[in-house]
């Protein structure tokens, strides 16, 4: 095994572990905002690491791997942000397990909560 194969294999193991942890966060977390946090950030890191690992294993593919990495790095936060804003505007407020509910939701100053809960 050459040094490139060792680096690539390590990156592939790290990436697949982070993909699994992101999916576990999707399954376990209680709230849609927590699910966005776990599912988007962990799978972004995992996907980028795994694709870079394949690029190390096959160095002639590296250019297109870098293109896919750049695309994942800007598309995942954009979709996460759009989903979070959409769910906030649909009045699915964050599940805050604290007494100080009013001050923890900082966006409520801009967009105040209405009293009735709307099912979606």
């Amino acid at each position, binding site marked *: *095994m050459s040094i490139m*194969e060792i680096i690539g*294999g390590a990156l*592939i*193991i790290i*990436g*697949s*572990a982070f*993909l*699994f942890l*992101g*999916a*576990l966060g*999707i*399954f376990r977390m209680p709230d*849609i905002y927590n*699910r*966005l946090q776990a*599912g*988007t950030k962990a*799978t*972004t890191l*995992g*996907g980028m690491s*795994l*694709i870079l690992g*394949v690029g190390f*294993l*096959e160095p002639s*593919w590296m250019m*297109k*791997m870098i*293109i*896919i990495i750049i*695309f*994942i790095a800007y*598309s*995942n936060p*954009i*979709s*996460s942000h*759009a*989903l979070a*804003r*959409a*769910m906030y*505007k*649909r009045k*699915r407020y964050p599940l805050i397990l604290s007494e100080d509910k009013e001050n923890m939701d900082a966006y409520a100053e801009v967009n105040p909560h209405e009293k009735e809960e709307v099912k*979606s």
Partner: protein
Amino acid sequence: MTIIIYIALSFMVLGFVLSAIRFVKGPTAGDRTVALDTITTIAVAAIILLAYIFQRFVYVDVALLYAVLGFIGVIVIARYLEGAL
């Protein structure tokens, strides 16, 4: 190297199954869309790993196109849920 690829594929299959359970079970439309986003990212990584296993460079283009289409789909669903579409 073969055992490493088997471990990585089994991790990704487990993640795919967990996201699919959330996709079926999720209480609201937003939860299902988040699960769909995660499934898309896992599938892009899996397609690239399969391209390495079969030594076909064409599959990398398939992965890039799937990433683009999944991103556009999630954005469109989010805009629709927001009420702006």
